[in-house]
């Protein structure tokens, strides 16, 4: 999560699979008596009205508006009235050399980010969860320590890592490398070099978000019945065999869920890229993401129509991932 999200984590986003929990909630809700029904209609509607109308106003309507705007040539602060553009914005995004360059680069960067972060962060979170799934004194303290970065706002995480990755020989990472290499390495511009810019963003995002995934996996591990391990012990299964044949099958569903959640969150990466590009010497081209592209197009270039088209493409990708998540998670749910 990257946000992480969860930091941003991102903090935890609203795309958790809805199917997920409804499966387990089947208790009887048949309590209404015939005489009550009429009034329940009114009360139910009144109770849900404030939140539902808020959602329609601030999520539903703007989303529809994004689709509409993407068919127009709209510029903020321009004296020209918006003109109908058809699919021109989309055509430009994908084929106009000036516009499609940065956009396709952003898409590629997002893809790279996701392809690296999803296995890396999920694997790390699983390793941590297994390490922390013990009855040791002070285990709670360790769990909180690994979880702590999740509560850090991404804007702050970016600043801390800006110092750690600073390009001068005095940066934390550079001086550590200097020390261990007897002075052969040092002074490398981690954020500014196009080869390491994305890697830097990945490292700080994983650091911030891994605790979130860890907690979810830890809860999954604790649902595996202890008898399974005892039986495996009796069969003289090695630690590795226990992991392969008890642990992994036991948390398969959770693991898939975490991986999918991470992939959706990883597409939303924005805060750290924005902070570091605007004030931290991050290589813009190597690190721009789709959201960064949408914001700079809308905000710096005042090109609302183009930005809306980016937004719609972004949404389609996220929905595809979410739907995929729901499909993959469901069958794993039964065990």
């Amino acid at each position: 999560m990257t946000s992480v999200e969860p930091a941003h984590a991102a903090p935890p986003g609203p795309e958790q699979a809805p199917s997920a929990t409804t499966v387990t909630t089947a208790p009887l809700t048949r309590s209404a008596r015939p005489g009550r029904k009429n009034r329940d209609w009114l009360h139910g509607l009144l109770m849900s009205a404030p939140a539902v109308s808020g959602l329609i106003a601030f999520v539903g309507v703007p989303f529809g508006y994004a689709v509409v705007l993407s068919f127009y040539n709209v510029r903020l602060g321009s004296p020209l009235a918006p003109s109908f553009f058809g699919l021109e914005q989309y055509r430009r995004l994908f084929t106009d050399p000036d516009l499609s360059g940065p956009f396709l680069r952003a898409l590629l960067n997002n893809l790279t980010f996701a392809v690296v972060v999803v296995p890396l962060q999920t694997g790390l979170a699983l390793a941590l969860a297994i390490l922390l799934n013990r009855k040791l004194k002070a285990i709670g303290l360790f769990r909180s320590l690994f979880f702590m970065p999740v509560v850090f706002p991404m804007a702050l995480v970016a600043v801390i890592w800006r110092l750690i990755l600073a390009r001068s020989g005095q940066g934390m990472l550079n001086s550590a490398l200097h020390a261990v290499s007897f002075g052969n390495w040092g002074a490398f511009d981690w954020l500014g070099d196009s080869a390491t810019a994305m890697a830097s963003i990945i490292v700080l995002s994983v650091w911030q978000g891994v605790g979130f995934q860890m907690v979810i996996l830890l809860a999954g591990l604790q649902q595996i019945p202890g008898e399974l391990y005892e039986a495996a012990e009796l069969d003289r299964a090695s630690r590795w065999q226990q992991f392969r044949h008890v642990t992994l099958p036991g948390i398969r569903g959770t693991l898939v869920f975490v991986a999918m959640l991470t992939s959706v969150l990883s597409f939303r990466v924005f805060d750290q890229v924005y902070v570091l590009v605007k004030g931290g010497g991050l290589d813009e081209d190597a690190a721009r993401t789709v959201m960064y592209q949408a914001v700079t197009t809308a905000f710096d270039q005042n090109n609302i129509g183009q930005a809306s088209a980016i937004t719609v493409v972004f949404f389609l990708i996220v929905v595809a991932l979410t739907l995929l998540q729901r499909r993959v998670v469901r069958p794993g749910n039964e065990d």
Partner: protein
Amino acid sequence: MNTSTSPGVIRRPLRRFLDYAVLSVLAFIFALPVLYLFMGSLKPSDEVLNGLSGFLPTHLSFDNYTAVLDSLNSDSTGYIWRFMGISLLLAFVVVTGGLFVNSMAAYGLSRLKWRGREAVFTLVLLLMLVPFESVAVPLFYMFNGQRNTLFIQAIPFIANAFSIYQFHTFFRSIPPSIEEAARLDGAGPWRTFFAIIVPMSKPAFASVAILTFLTQWGSFLWPVLMVSDPSVRPLPLEMSVFQGQLPPDWGQILAFGVLLVLPVLIVFAFFQRWFVQGVASSAVKG
């Protein structure tokens, strides 16, 4: 919670020692950036970016904190208490308003029987699919006239589909006999909700509150788009402005960072249990 199984724990005390050793080393590496933040905030600026000695506890003082409070206390740079107050106010409005409307909606959608509630709930689930990022640009365009207001920073985030979903899940696990008893005593749905359901749903309220607070406190994308005036600027946005100053004063920047994260760390320390439970239960069943 603690039904963990670690085979062989009793047999091998050495193993226990190794567990501690591995965990300690990992935790130390993991905590380094946080340590660096706190240590650096207490050091003179020229010693923060000074190689590995940035960790050494020499010349510690609270000068950076007083300097941040001083430098951010003028008409030209803005007022730190104001940024802090704005962030707190926004968090308060979004969290309390959100708890109120979202829990109520979830109750209406999960425990009251009425025609059309399935349709409304499906709509909520569909809207849950839409990440905020994908409506940020049109919202920005729609509310361009309300830029730099407090109103526009809070209102769009009160209603939250994911919070409704979390409450919905929790409410459906409450046995219906409790409501039947209340109804026999003559309580209507509103009274049943506020006097009975709400008090017994503290864990759900706590975990939704904490998740909402975290998200709102760190909120960055929306202020970037909507806020340029320092008088309504929330903390994380000011943090990114402050760290971009030239030449950067690292000691002060880190002190500012501590001021930004301290409120969440305090909240986290107090409500950790609910938080972890909330995150875990919202996901594990999936």
